[in-house]
C-alpha cells in the first residue's frame, strides 16, 4: 500500500516536472529597454477587458485597446480633447444650424484585410448598435440622431427612417434631432465607429454576443494597429497595421496591454523596468514618488467630479438650506492636501472648470459661518434636533478616509452627527438605485468634452440622477441647450442650468479628479488631455532618454 502511494507521488512529481518544462519553453516579453529598441509600448491597463466588441463593452481598459484597433470619422486630437482631428473622414461640413452633417470619407481608408472603409460600414455599425436585441449599453449615445431612439425602442422597424444616409460610397450624411455644435466631439466615442460587415456576418451575425469576431485571426479593424495576441489575464498585443491610411505617421511597431488590477503590483512592474506606463499610482505612494522619482510621476487633471449626493426625498435633506449647510461646511482645500493626496482640485462647481469656453463660477465655498446660519434657519440651531444620518459609500480605503474627514468637518462646524456606512459595490449600486440612503458618495467622469456630459445627469427621470431631485426649469434649460442653434447659446443655457442645480444643491461637489500615473521618460508624444485620451499614432519611444 505504502509502495503504491510512493508510485503516485513519483508520477505526480513527473507531471509537475512536465508542466514546469512546458512553462520554460514559453518566450519572455520585451522589458522597457527592449521595448524602446523595438518601438513596442508597454502599458499597464487596469483589468482584463470585458471583450473587444465595441458595441458590448463600456469600460476604460477596453477603450484604450479599441482606440488602437479602430478609428471613427473623427479621431482623438493629440493635445486637446476639445478639438477634432480628421479620422476616416477627410473633411466634413454642416448646415447653418449644425443639425445636418456631411462627412467625406478618405479614399485610402482601409480595413486591416485591405477592403476600403465605406459609408455603408458606418450604416451597418449604427444599425447593429441600435438593434435592441443586441443589448448594446451605449446605444443611447446615438439618440441624438434623428429616428435613432424610435428604431431602438421598436417604434419603427425600418432603419431607413433613421437619420443616417450614404449619399454615395464615401459620403455619409447624419441628421440630428436638433442643432448640435458639439456633435463632432461625440463622434470620437467608439459607439460611433464603423464595423466590417463580412467579418461580423461570418462569425455569428449581427446579434451575436459571443465575441467570436473579435478573436485573434478573426478581427478586422481599421485602426492604426491590428490585434496580434490575446492571452486573457496576461496580455494583449497589437502590431502596426500595414493597411492603415496614415501608417507613415505611426512610429510604434506595437503595443502590449497588461491587465494588472492591483496598482501596487503595477507600480512594482514599472519600477523593475517591465512597463512604460503604470496606469494608476497607489494613493500612499504618491508622496514617495514625488520625492524620489518626480521624473516618472505625472498628475494630470481628468474631466470628472467626486461628490456627495443627497436623498432629497428624506427629511431633513429635503430642505435646500440643510443641503447648502452641509456643502458649505466641507473644507475642500484641507481635504485635498491632507486626505485624498492625489493633487485633486477642490471643486467650486459641479462641472469641472476644465473647458476652454465654459464659464467657471464659484458656487460652493467653505463658509462655516453661513453654514451654521443656514442650518439654524432650517430649524437646527447649533445642530440641535438634527437626526443622525448615514453616509453611504462603497467599500474602499480611499472613500473611507475622505468620508471620515468630511463627517468630522460636519461635526466640528455644524455639531451634527453623521455615521459611516460602507457596502460592497453591487449592494451600494442597488441602494443608490432604490434611493435607499441619506447621503451617498458619487463620482462622474465625462464621456465627451462638453459640459452636457455632466449636466444631463440631473434631468428628471435620468437613470443616473439618483437623488430624487427634479426641477422643471432645469429640465427646460437642458432641453434648450440640446437644441441651441450655436455653441455660444448652448454654453449659455448649460451655465444657467448649472446655476439652478447649484442653487438647489442636490449634490455637493467635493473635488475634481486628477489622474496620477507613472510614465517612462522615453515616451514621446504623450500629452495631458482632460478625457485621458492619448492617440497612439503620435507616440514613440526615444532611445537616448535615461532608463530606469
Amino acid at each position, binding site marked *: *500500500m*505504502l509502495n503504491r*502511494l510512493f508510485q503516485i507521488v513519483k508520477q*505526480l512529481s513527473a507531471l*509537475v516536472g512536465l*508542466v*514546469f518544462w512546458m*512553462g*520554460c519553453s*514559453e*518566450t*519572455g*516579453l520585451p522589458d522597457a529597454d527592449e521595448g524602446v529598441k523595438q518601438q513596442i509600448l508597454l502599458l499597464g491597463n487596469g483589468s*482584463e477587458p*470585458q*471583450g*473587444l*466588441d465595441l458595441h458590448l463593452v*463600456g469600460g476604460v481598459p477596453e477603450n484604450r485597446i479599441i482606440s488602437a484597433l479602430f478609428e471613427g470619422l473623427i479621431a482623438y486630437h493629440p493635445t486637446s480633447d476639445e478639438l477634432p482631428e480628421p479620422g476616416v473622414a477627410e473633411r466634413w461640413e454642416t448646415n447653418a444650424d449644425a443639425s445636418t452633417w456631411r462627412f467625406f470619407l478618405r479614399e485610402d481608408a482601409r480595413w486591416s484585410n485591405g477592403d476600403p472603409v465605406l459609408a455603408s460600414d458606418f450604416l451597418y455599425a449604427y444599425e447593429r448598435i441600435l438593434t*435592441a*436585441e*443586441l*443589448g*448594446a*449599453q451605449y*446605444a443611447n449615445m446615438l439618440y441624438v440622431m434623428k429616428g435613432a431612439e424610435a428604431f431602438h*425602442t421598436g417604434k419603427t422597424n425600418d432603419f431607413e427612417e433613421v437619420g443616417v444616409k450614404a449619399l454615395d460610397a464615401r459620403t455619409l450624411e447624419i441628421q440630428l434631432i436638433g442643432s448640435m455644435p458639439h456633435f463632432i466631439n461625440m463622434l470620437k466615442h467608439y459607439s460611433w465607429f464603423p464595423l466590417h460587415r463580412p467579418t461580423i456576418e461570418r462569425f455569428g451575425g449581427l446579434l451575436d*454576443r*459571443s*465575441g467570436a469576431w*473579435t*478573436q485573434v485571426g478573426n478581427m478586422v479593424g481599421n485602426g492604426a494597429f491590428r490585434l496580434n495576441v490575446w*492571452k*486573457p*489575464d*496576461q496580455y494583449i498585443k497589437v502590431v502596426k497595421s500595414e493597411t492603415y491610411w496614415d501608417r507613415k505617421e505611426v512610429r510604434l511597431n506595437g503595443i502590449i496591454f*497588461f491587465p*494588472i*488590477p*492591483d496598482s*501596487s*503590483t503595477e507600480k*512594482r*512592474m514599472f*519600477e*523593475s523596468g*517591465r512597463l512604460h506606463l503604470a496606469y494608476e499610482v497607489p494613493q500612499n505612494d504618491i508622496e514617495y514618488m514625488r520625492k524620489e522619482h518626480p521624473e516618472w510621476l505625472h498628475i494630470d487633471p481628468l474631466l470628472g467630479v467626486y461628490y456627495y449626493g443627497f436623498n432629497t426625498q428624506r427629511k431633513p435633506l429635503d430642505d435646500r438650506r440643510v443641503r447648502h449647510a452641509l456643502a458649505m461646511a466641507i473644507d475642500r482645500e484641507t481635504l485635498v492636501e491632507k486626505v485624498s493626496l492625489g493633487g485633486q482640485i477642490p471643486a467650486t462647481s459641479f462641472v469641472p472648470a476644465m473647458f476652454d469656453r465654459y464659464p467657471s463660477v464659484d458656487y460652493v465655498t467653505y463658509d462655516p459661518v453661513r453654514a451654521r446660519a443656514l442650518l439654524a434657519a432650517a430649524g437646527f440651531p447649533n445642530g440641535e434636533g438634527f437626526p443622525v444620518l448615514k453616509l453611504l459609500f462603497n467599500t474602499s480605503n480611499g472613500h473611507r478616509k475622505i468620508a471620515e474627514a468630511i463627517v468630522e468637518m460636519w461635526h466640528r462646524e455644524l455639531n451634527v452627527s453623521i455615521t459611516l456606512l460602507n457596502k*460592497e*459595490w*453591487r*449592494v*451600494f*449600486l*442597488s*441602494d443608490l*438605485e432604490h434611493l435607499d440612503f441619506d447621503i451617498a458618495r458619487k*463620482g462622474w467622469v465625462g464621456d465627451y468634452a462638453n459640459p452636457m456630459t455632466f449636466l444631463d445627469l440631473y434631468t428628471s427621470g*435620468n*437613470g*443616473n440622477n439618483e437623488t430624487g431631485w427634479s426641477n422643471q426649469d432645469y429640465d427646460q434649460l437642458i432641453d434648450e441647450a440640446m437644441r441651441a442653434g450655436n455653441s455660444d447659446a448652448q454654453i449659455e443655457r448649460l451655465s444657467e442650468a448649472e446655476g439652478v442645480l447649484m442653487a438647489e444643491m442636490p449634490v455637493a461637489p467635493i473635488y475634481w479628479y486628477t489622474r496620477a500615473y507613472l510614465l517612462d521618460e522615453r515616451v514621446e508624444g504623450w500629452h495631458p488631455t482632460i478625457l485621458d485620451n492619448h492617440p497612439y499614432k503620435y507616440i514613440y519611444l526615444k532611445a537616448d532618454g535615461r532608463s530606469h
Partner: protein
Amino acid sequence: MVEAIERDDFTMIKFILSRIIQSAVVVFIILTLTFVMVRLAPGGPFSSERKMQPYILERINAYYGLDDPVILQYFNYVGGVLRGNLGPSFTETRTVNQILESTIPVSFELGTWALLIALGIGLPIGILAAVKRNSALDYGPMSVAMLGICFPTFVMGPVLAMIFGVWLGWFNVAGWFVASDRVLPACTLGLVYAAYIARIARGGMLEVLNQDFIRTAAAKGVSSWGIIFKHSLRGGLLPVVSFLGPALAGLISGSFVVETVFNLPGMGREFVTSAFDRDYFLVQGTVIVYAALITAANLGVDIAQVVLNPKLGFED
C-alpha cells in the same frame, strides 16, 4: 469491530466508492446552495455606475436566460453541468469552461510548487524541533515559523517582490511568462504553509516520542535516527496528513492574494472577483471545482491515514 490488519482491497474499494457517492451528493448540494445564494445577493450582474436603460437590461437578461423563472434556470443549469457545460461568463468573452481550463493549470502548478516548498521546509524543521526539544534548534526555527504564520501572504508577497524583483532584479515582479516566474509566488505561498506544517509536525512528533514504545526502543539500543525514521514518523506525521487535505485543496484552487500580488492568471482571482461581479455562472463553476477538490483531497487524506495508522480501518 473487524481487525484492521485483516482489511483487504475489497473493503477499500467499497469505502472509496461510497465516499465518492457521498462527495457527489455534497457537491450537488453545494451547487444548489450557491445557485440560490448568488441570486439572493443584492445587485445584479449588469448593475453599474452608469445606468443602463431598463429595456437594454431586459434584452441582456433575456440573452443569458436570466428572465426565465428561477426554477427553470436551475434545471437548465444543472442540465448544462451534467453535460459538462458550465455556461457563459458575464464579464469576459470566454465561457466558464474556457476560463477554468486556462486558470486551473496555473493554480495547480503554483500550488504544487508551494506544497513542495512547504513540506520541504516545514517537515525537517518540525521533526528537528521535536527531537531537539527545548534547545536552540527548537526555539530558533519555531520562532521563525511563528513569524511565518503571523506574516500573511499579502505582506510576504510584496516584500519578496520588492527585494528579489525590484532591488536585486533576480526575478520578474509579476507575471506568469517564464519558468523563473514561479519562484516568488511559490515561495510566498509555500512559506506560510511551511510554518504551519512545522508546528503541527513538531506537536505530532512530540506526542509520539513521549510514548512508552519509544522509550522501550531506546532502552533496547535502537539508534536515535532509527527511532525517528522507523518508529516515530508514521504516527507523528498523522496530524500533518490531516492538515494537508484542506490545505491541498486551498493550495491548488489558487490563492487570491498571491495571484493578485503577482498578477497570475490563476483560478483564485476568478473565485473572488466573480463573486464581486455577480458573474453567476463563473461563481458557480469555481465553487463546483473547489468543492470537488476539497472532497477529493479529504478522501485522499482518509486513505493515507489508514495506510499510516494500522489502528484505523476502512470500516466506519
